[in-house]
């Protein structure tokens, strides 16, 4: 499968030659503090995370508390964003959804990130038949259009958060693996890597102490956008009837449930949509900033 990609994570070997680079210097705090993208993005993401953590205090009602006598109410002082079809407070659901979606996004990305980086490093470092086999496996998975694979996998493993977790674990690691493999290929040809090897350092030591610190930054940068892709994919799965189990508040199901009321109560689906966009902006800025900060001089 392939999520949309950045140019720097080219599809095949020549992309490495074209655009690959190796981070030679470690990021410094000062550089980070001067980076506007990183600071703005960090502020946005930080606020969202804070809202997510403080959800129990920021939300004004229990997000699951139904009031069937007060459904689909307009925004008011009592219900800042009105109520949904079951009379639940939309503001409270929005806040709790932030907690759920951010956690889902980061958590779901964790495994593909770790596994993909591992596979990519192994393939790139050892080369030979290991690389050939792993690369072909990566190619097979990448050949499936993103949603085609995710949808099929969700049918296989079942709906809901468990299904989504497994589907992404199986599908999403390849992008990391390919990116990391490319940079590792370049890194191991560097003089210092060769020197380290001839100096008698073990492979494991070289990988952990020399290769990984250089290659993992790109994976981290991609992971930032990937969190957004995951949230978007969950939203889209909801549209296709394959999303999160009710009554869990989640931006995707809020967008989906609200779209029937697009003409009468636009905010029901637009505001959770905006939340996804803002999250996207925040994480992209962080990603951009990180890329800048970690880029070699």
């Amino acid at each position, binding site marked *: 499968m392939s999520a949309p990609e950045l*140019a720097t994570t080219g599809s*095949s070997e020549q*992309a490495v030659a074209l655009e690959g680079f190796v981070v030679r210097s470690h990021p410094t705090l000062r550089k980070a503090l001067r980076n506007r993208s990183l600071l703005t993005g960090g502020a946005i993401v930080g606020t969202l995370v804070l809202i997510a953590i403080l959800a129990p205090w920021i939300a004004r009602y229990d997000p699951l508390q139904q009031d069937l006598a007060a459904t689909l109410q307009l925004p008011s002082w009592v219900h800042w964003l009105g109520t949904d079809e079951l009379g639940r407070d939309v503001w409270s659901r929005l806040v709790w959804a932030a907690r759920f979606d951010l956690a889902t996004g980061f958590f779901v990305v964790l495994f593909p990130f770790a596994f993909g980086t591992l596979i990519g490093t192994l393939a790139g470092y050892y080369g030979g038949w290991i690389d050939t086999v792993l690369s*072909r496996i990566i*190619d097979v998975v990448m050949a499936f259009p993103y949603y085609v694979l995710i949808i099929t996998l969700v049918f*296989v493993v079942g709906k809901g958060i468990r299904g989504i977790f497994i589907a992404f674990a199986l599908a999403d690691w390849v992008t990391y693996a390919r990116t990391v493999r490319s940079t590792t290929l370049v890194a191991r040809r560097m003089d210092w890597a060769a020197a380290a090897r001839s100096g008698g350092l073990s492979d494991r030591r070289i990988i952990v102490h020399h290769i990984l610190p250089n290659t993992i930054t790109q994976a981290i940068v991609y992971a930032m956008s990937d969190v957004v892709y995951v949230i978007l994919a969950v939203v889209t799965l909801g549209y296709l009837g394959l999303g999160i189990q009710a009554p869990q508040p989640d931006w995707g199901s809020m967008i989906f449930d609200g779209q029937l009321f*697009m003409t009468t109560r636009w905010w029901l689906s637009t505001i959770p949509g905006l939340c*996804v966009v803002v999250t*996207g902006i925040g994480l992209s800025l962080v990603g951009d900033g990180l890329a800048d900060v970690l880029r070699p001089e």
Partner: protein
Amino acid sequence: MYVLRRLLQAIPVVLGIVVVVFFMLRLIPGDPAAALLGTHATPEAIQALRDRWGLDEPIWVQFWLFLQQLAQGDTGTSLFYDVSTRTLIASRIPVTVALVALASVFSVLIAVPLATYAAVRKDRLPDHAIRMVPLVGLGMPSFWVGLVLILLFSVQLGWFPVGGWGDTFAEHVYGLILPALTSALGIVPLLVRSLRAGMLEVLEADYVAVARSKGIRESRVLFVHVARNAFVPTLTLLGINIAFLMGATVVVERVFQLNGLGSLMLTAISNRDFPVVQGVTIIFALAVVVITLVTDLVAAATDPRIKLS
């Protein structure tokens, strides 16, 4: 040599795709016979259908049959429609190909000028504004974009049909404009971001400086040197993202009620019409493999460095 190696690499990938598709689909719970016959179906009727479809054969037997058929270029007969999946897929391909093609055109038409303008006006207001595009665009689900476009351009303004594909060529193109735009908007953010970076590199390159110093007009510099050098990276980028564009058709075709491969796959998967899902998935995957291959070869032909590696 490089061409041959890339072609050989594609073989295990195609085989892998076939194996993955077949077994992945068999793992999906749910009985196609029960799905077809509905609530009032008798157990006898369900069993009769299962027998007819050979669903109770051991999975290895089914796989062997599948491979035999596939070797002859046949992906089997649809359980639901009782027609060859080849016919079925052939009838749906034009819609999806047209959609993906038009979406690619749109994304280039939107992304290249934006990226160029941003690069030329680096760090000034237009650049900052355009750089926001990827950030905002990234966070918008395409079904949502599609719905908003329909509400705006079809319902409010009445400029475009709400959905469907029409009968004539003109109607096809007309009907595809909004869906293609929706698909394109999905990848425009990425194209803009990468192209802008690429453009900046070119703009700072020596030969551009030389051209400028020779007093060649700025617009000519942009057009001849920069645009030409941006062409291949754009193509490569599109090639890389084609899989994403194709995947997006699954959603976009549903929003706009287009009967292409994507909607065929969605219906087929919920009906458990395995031969059809197999056929469509394999076609999708093969298309990605072929397009990636072609992109790589084109890039190789234009960049001698690659052949050496």
